[in-house]
C-alpha cells in the first residue's frame, strides 16, 4: 500500500518535473531558499512611510527593467534565432530623448517642463520604437545577421543620447516625473511593478488574441515553409524587432524616472546581457522557434533575486559579479540538453535494470 502511495507521489513529481516551467521556477525558488537559510529577514515585508518595504518588493521593483526587456528579447530570439544587443543603449537614448524634450535642448536641470510630461514620455517610447524599426529593417529586409545589425545601435544609440543632452546629465526636478520609477503618492506599491505588468499584459494579449504567437513560432522554426504557407516572414521578423525596441523605450523611461534624469552613460548599461540571460534562464532555446514568455519573465526576476541576495549578504559590489556568474553557470548547466539527456539516460538505465531483474 505504502509503496503504491509512494509511486503515485513519485509519478506526480515526475510530471511536475517534466513541465516546461519547472526548471525556471525551480531555479528562482532555489535562489530564494538560500536566503531563507542565510537571512530569514529577507522575506519580511513592512510598511514604512506609507509604502511597502522589503527585499521581495525590492526584487520586483528593481527587476522591472530586465523583465520588460526580456519580453521583447524573447520575441526577437524566437523569430530570428538572434539577439538584439542594442536594447541597453536604446534605453539610454529613449531616456535622453524624453528628458531633452521635457527640459528643452541644452538645459541641464529644470523645475518646469517645456512640453506636457505625457508627450515627453510617449516621445521617449516612440524613440525606442524607431530604433526597433531600424534594427528590424536591417535584419528582415537587408538580411544582416541580428548580432551585427543591432551592434550598430549598441555603439551609436548611447552616443546619440549624449548628443541630444548636450553632453551633460539632464535633470528633471519635476515631482510627477519621479512617479514611474518610484511611488505615486498614496499607493504603497512601486509604480514600476504596474508598468511591467502593463507591458506583459499588452504583449500577452497580443500573442493570445491574435495569431502573432503562432506566426512567430512558425517563422522561427522554418522560415521557408512559413513563407510558402502564406506568412510574410520578413514582416513578422520586422514586427518583433519593433516590439523589442518599444520595450526598450519603456524600460529606458522607467530607469530615467528612478533617477529623475537622463544619465546617458549609465542608463541601461549591460542590460542587454541581462535581458538575453533572462530569456536563457527561462528555458528558451537561443536557436529560435517555440518560446515561453512566462519563463523569460521568471528568468528576469531570478537575475534580480541573485543580485539582491548578494547585496543582502553583504557581498561587495565589486565582487558580486563573480558570485553571480557562478550561480548563472549552475543554472544554465542544469538546463543544458547534455544534462537533460544524461538525467533521462540515468532514469532509463534504472528502468532497464529493473526489467532485467524481472526477466531473470
Amino acid at each position, binding site marked *: 500500500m505504502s509503496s503504491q502511495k509512494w509511486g503515485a507521489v513519485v509519478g506526480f513529481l515526475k510530471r511536475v518535473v517534466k513541465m516546461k516551467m519547472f526548471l525556471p521556477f525551480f531555479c528562482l525558488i532555489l535562489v530564494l531558499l538560500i536566503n531563507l537559510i542565510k537571512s530569514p529577514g529577507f522575506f519580511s515585508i513592512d510598511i514604512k512611510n506609507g509604502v511597502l518595504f522589503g527585499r521581495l518588493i525590492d526584487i520586483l521593483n528593481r527587476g522591472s527593467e530586465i523583465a520588460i526587456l526580456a519580453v521583447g528579447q524573447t520575441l526577437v530570439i524566437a523569430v530570428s534565432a538572434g539577439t538584439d544587443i542594442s536594447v541597453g543603449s536604446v534605453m539610454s537614448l529613449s531616456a535622453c530623448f524624453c528628458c531633452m524634450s521635457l527640459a528643452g535642448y541644452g538645459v541641464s536641470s529644470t523645475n518646469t517642463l517645456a512640453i506636457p510630461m505625457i508627450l515627453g514620455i510617449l516621445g521617449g517610447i516612440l524613440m525606442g520604437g524607431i530604433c526597433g524599426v531600424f534594427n528590424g529593417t536591417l535584419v528582415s529586409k537587408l538580411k544582416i545577421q541580428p548580432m551585427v545589425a543591432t551592434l550598430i545601435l549598441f555603439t551609436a544609440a548611447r552616443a546619440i543620447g549624449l548628443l541630444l543632452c548636450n553632453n551633460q546629465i539632464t535633470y528633471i526636478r519635476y515631482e510627477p516625473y519621479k512617479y514611474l520609477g518610484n511611488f505615486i503618492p498614496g499607493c504603497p506599491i512601486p509604480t514600476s511593478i504596474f508598468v511591467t505588468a502593463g507591458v506583459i499584459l499588452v504583449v500577452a494579449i497580443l500573442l493570445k488574441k491574435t495569431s502573432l504567437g503562432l506566426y512567430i513560432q512558425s517563422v522561427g522554426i522554418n522560415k521557408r515553409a512559413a*513563407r510558402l504557407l502564406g506568412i510574410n516572414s520578413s514582416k513578422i521578423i520586422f514586427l518583433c524587432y519593433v516590439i523589442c525596441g518599444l520595450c526598450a523605450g519603456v524600460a529606458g523611461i522607467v530607469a530615467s524616472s528612478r533617477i529623475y534624469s537622463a544619465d546617458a552613460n549609465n542608463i541601461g548599461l549591460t542590460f542587454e546581457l541581462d535581458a538575453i540571460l533572462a530569456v536563457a534562464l527561462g528555458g528558451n532555446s537561443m536557436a529560435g522557434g517555440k518560446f515561453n514568455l512566462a519563463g523569460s519573465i521568471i528568468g528576469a526576476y531570478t537575475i534580480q533575486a541573485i543580485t539582491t541576495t548578494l547585496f543582502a549578504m553583504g557581498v561587495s559590489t565589486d565582487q558580486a559579479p563573480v558570485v553571480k556568474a557562478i550561480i548563472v553557470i549552475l543554472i544554465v548547466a542544469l538546463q543544458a540538453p547534455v544534462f537533460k539527456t544524461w538525467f533521462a539516460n540515468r532514469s532509463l538505465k534504472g528502468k532497464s535494470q529493473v526489467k532485467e531483474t524481472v526477466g531473470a
Partner: protein
Amino acid sequence: MEDQILLTMRGVSKTFPGVKALDNVSITLRKGEIHALMGENGAGKSTLIKVLTGVHAFEEGEIRLDGFDEPIINHTPIEAQKRGIVTVYQEVNLCPNLSVAENLFIGREPKTKLGYIDWRKMNKLSRELLKRLDIDVDVTQTLENYSLAIQQMVAIARAVDMDCKALILDEPTSSLDENEVSKLFVLMRHLREKGVGIIFVTHFLEQVYAVCDRITVLRNGEFAGEYTVAEMPRFKLVATMLGKDVDDLDSIKPEGCESNCDEIAVEAVGLGHKGTIKPFDFHIRKGEVVGVTGLLGSGRTEMVRCLYGADHAQSGTLKMKGKVLKAKAPIDSIKSGMGYLPDDRKADGLISELSVRENIVLALQARQGVFKTLPLAKQYELADSFIEMLHIKTATRETPVSQLSGGNQQKVILARWLCTHPDFLILDEPTRGIDIGTKTEFQKLILKFASEGMSVVFISSEIEEMLRTCTRMCVMRDGEKVGEIDGEMTQEIVMSAIAGGEEK
C-alpha cells in the same frame, strides 16, 4: 591505353541504419574515358562516390586501383586524394577569398630558401598549368571574381596538377549555363586525351550523350548495368533508370475521371523564372488532374513553384479563374485559391516543432490574417475532422508533427491545404517515401477532389501513379516544357517523351 582498367569497385555493399544504400554494386573505370554514373534520386550514386573517396566506410566488396597490388580502402578523402582519386562537387570547395594561384597551390605552396612562400614561382606555375588546360584567367585575381564554371575548372585544374588518375565530377553542371557547360566539356575531353579516367554524375541526358563513353546505371542501390553510350539509346536508358523493362510494359488503363467541364481554372502564358525555368504555357480546367513529368532536375518543381508564386515569375501572365493574378508572395496565390504541397517536406513544408493541429490550421490562419484568429474550438474541430478523414495516425492532435511518420506528416500538410478549400491544388511528389497503402489512398483522394471540382497538378516520379490519376501530362526536360501528352497514355509513350531526342 584504350582499354586499360584504372579503377574497379566490385560487389560493394553499404548499409545505413534501416536502409541498404548499396547492394552489390560494381563499376569499372578505364583510362581515358568519361564514364557517366546515372540513376534517379536515392539510387545510390552519391553513396557510391562517398564510399570510393572514403567519406563512408563500406561493409563488403573491394576497390582496386591501377598501381596497387592489393585492394585499397580509403578511410578519408585525403587518403583517396593521395592515391589519385579526386572529387569536384557541385558546390566548389575552394576558398573564394583567395587568389586563383593560392587556391591551386594551397597546402603545397612553393617555398623560397628562407621558408617564405615563393609568390613569383607560384603564379608562374599556376599560369603554366592553366595554359596547358586552356583556361584563360588572371591567376592573381581572387577566385570569387570568376563565374562558378571557372571556379569549378580551377578545382579540376588543382586536381589534375595533384597527379590525379581518377577524377570524379559530382553534378558539376547543375548550376552552370549552356556556355559554361560547353567550356567544361572541352576541359573534360582534354583530360580524357591525357589518360585521366572521369566519373561524371549528372541528371542531364543531353550531357551524357555529349561527352560520355560509357554509362553505369544504378537503381535502388543496386547495379542495373554498364553500357557503352553507342548501344544505349535514350529511351532504353530512361527505362533502365526507372526500372521498367521496355518489352513487357503493360499499358495501364487510365482510371482518371474525364473532365467534362470546359471552364478553365488556371491559365499561364509565357510564364518563366530566369535561371530555373524557361517560359512556358499551361492551362488546367476545372476538375482536371494534370501531371507534370520529367526526370529529376528537369524543371518539374520549378514550373509549379513559378505557377504558385513561390518563385516570382519574371515574364508572362497568369490567369486564375479568368482574372490576372500578380502574386508577389505565396499569400497572394493562397488568397486567390491556390494550394501547394512542396516536394521537400522537411525544408519547405513542416513546421516541425509545432503540433499537428497548428500545422493543419496554419495556411487557413495565414489566409484569414493575423488579427482574425480562428477560435480554438474551430481549430480542434478542423484538426479532428482531418485526422479522421485522412486517417492521420497521431497520438493526439497536440502531438508535435515531427513525431509522426513521413506518410502521416505528408497527410498533415495535405490537410493544411484542404482546410483552405483551394480551387487549384499543386501536389509535388506527395507520395515520395510513403508506403504503398498510403500511396493508393493519396491517388484515390486526388480523384475524389477532382470530381468535386478541384483542379489538381500532380507530380510523381512513378509514372504508373500519374497514369492512374491524370488526364493529361506536361513533359519537362532540362528546365523547359517540351510538350504535352493527352489521349492515349502508356508508360512507353511517357518514357520516350521524357527521354526525348531522336529516338522512336
